[in-house]
């Protein structure tokens, strides 16, 4: 596995607030990742440090095998910010042309095709665009850059469902033909759940969980039934969330559950079911806060 990005014990605080707290993660080549967290979890600070826009108080960022020194900007990286700084007096096609100068693998054919796909008028000025169309300009740049590491921060902000789907579909299509490492930072898991291979769940500046989405689907489950039976069942298991109403209760758990354990539990009257991902993450984040 070739490492495209490695982050070691990265920290950054604003005054007394720890925005990023000794965070480590690694991205392999040719993989799509998700960075999930609520607003204010520290995602944007982390991404700004990875791309050299801000400097960590401690720790290390290694991009394509090269440590990033203070003041340096990594090459072969395309970072599409949530809040872009494109000149608002420029036309869409000018912004695309300007962006192309910074990406050696730029595909201008793709850029102009995507203008059509996403129904963007290239003659419009940036200041005339809606928030969603603005996001799309960034997304076109991110896709057409074909950068070996492409990072999108909240790429579907302001977009309607149809356009969101179009974006993710296009991303998958282009990724299939031109594999590269893509990191999607968002607070909405459901939309990226089938698109990404692995997710990092971030809260309070740390990674709560780093796992393949498929694995989470396999390992996250709820048990419901009699409170007493649940209490004995969850013993020694990782409980993400639990609530009870007198005699009955429900618990969200995480871990491997063998067929035998499952049928045993069921024979004791427990009902075992899956958990929707978005719910699972919400519980996980809640749990993370409780542990502080």
């Amino acid at each position, binding site marked *: 596995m070739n490492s495209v990005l490695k982050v070691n014990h990265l920290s950054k605080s604003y005054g007394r607030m720890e925005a990023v707290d000794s965070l480590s993660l690694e991205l392999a080549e040719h993989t799509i990742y998700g960075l999930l967290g609520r607003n204010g979890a520290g995602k944007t600070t982390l991404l700004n440090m990875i791309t050299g826009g801000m400097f960590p108080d401690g720790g290390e960022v290694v991009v394509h095998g090269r440590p990033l020194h203070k003041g340096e900007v990594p090459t072969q990286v395309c*970072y599409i910010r949530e809040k872009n700084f494109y*000149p608002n007096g420029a036309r869409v096609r000018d912004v695309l042309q300007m962006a192309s*100068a910074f*990406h050696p693998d730029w595909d201008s054919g793709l850029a102009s095709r995507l203008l059509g796909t996403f129904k963007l008028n290239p003659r419009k000025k940036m200041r005339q665009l809606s928030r969603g169309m603005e996001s799309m300009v960034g997304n076109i740049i991110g896709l057409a850059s074909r950068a070996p590491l492409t990072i999108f921060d909240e790429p579907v902000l302001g977009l309607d469902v149809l356009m969101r789907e179009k974006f993710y579909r296009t991303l998958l299509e282009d990724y299939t033909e031109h594999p590269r490492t893509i990191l999607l930072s968002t607070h909405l898991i459901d939309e990226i759940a089938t698109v990404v291979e692995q997710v990092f769940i971030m809260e309070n500046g740390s990674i709560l969980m780093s796992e393949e989405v498929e694995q989470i689907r396999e390992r996250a489950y709820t048990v419901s039934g009699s409170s007493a039976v649940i209490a004995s069942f969850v013993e020694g298991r990782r409980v993400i969330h639990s609530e009870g109403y007198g005699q009955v209760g429900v618990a969200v758990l995480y871990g491997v559950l063998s067929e035998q354990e499952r049928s045993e539990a069921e024979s004791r009257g427990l009902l075992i079911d899956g958990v929707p991902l978005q719910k699972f993450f919400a519980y996980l984040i809640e749990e993370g806060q409780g542990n502080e």
Partner: protein
Amino acid sequence: MNKMGVQMRVSVLRMRLAILLVIGAIAVSTIANYTINAALQGDPQRDAQEVAAAVGELNELAGKDAIKIEAPSEIENINISSANLLLILLPVLAIILPLRTFRTMLNFGDSRGRYFIGLLLIYAAAALVLALCNSLWWPFEQGVIREHSQTINLIEVFGWDRMGIIGAFLYQAAFYFFVLSLFNLLFSRMKSPVTWILWAVLIAAIPIGTSIASLRVHVADFFLALLFNDSLLAGMGLNLALSAVFIAGAWLFTRHRTI
């Protein structure tokens, strides 16, 4: 388009409004002057006396006969040369570019080093272009405009005309670059306490430098050497050396500037 081209484009986009405003202001002031000249009956002799008194005061301040303006016995309304009004663009440029183009360029994926070199190239080009404009305007101003109205141009105020047209051009370019690099330094990193100290020192220096008599001589000497230097080489050298110091400072700011 290469990266430098992008930077030029971004700079033009960010400056467009300011350039239009400056040119508009020059046009308005020129028209206003003509109207006033035509409408008011000035007192040329009294005006001339006032200018002579002002020159005398300046010479007293400098301690010697540094300013070699022959105050005429009578003048009409004196206007600043239109080409000089354009110089307002120097501070405007060096304020807007560091404030408004750094993030844009880094957002595109530019490195701080390349951005900074590009910025210096733009400043150098701006200094040369403005110096060229004024140098070409100067003979026209003397030959044509002064037939109709009295104007005043930096070239004669600082006595650069004694160095010939090429000399005047070079001295101006060096001085303009100095102004650009000074403002650029002051606006390169507004979030840093070092910048705030720099501002405080500069603001404090003006009243202190002019009010304390023993300092005043040195301040005057400094400006004489910087602006009224009899040697083209020494004058340009001083301007460019100071620019180099400001540029080094601005790079220290930019090198670790966050987005």
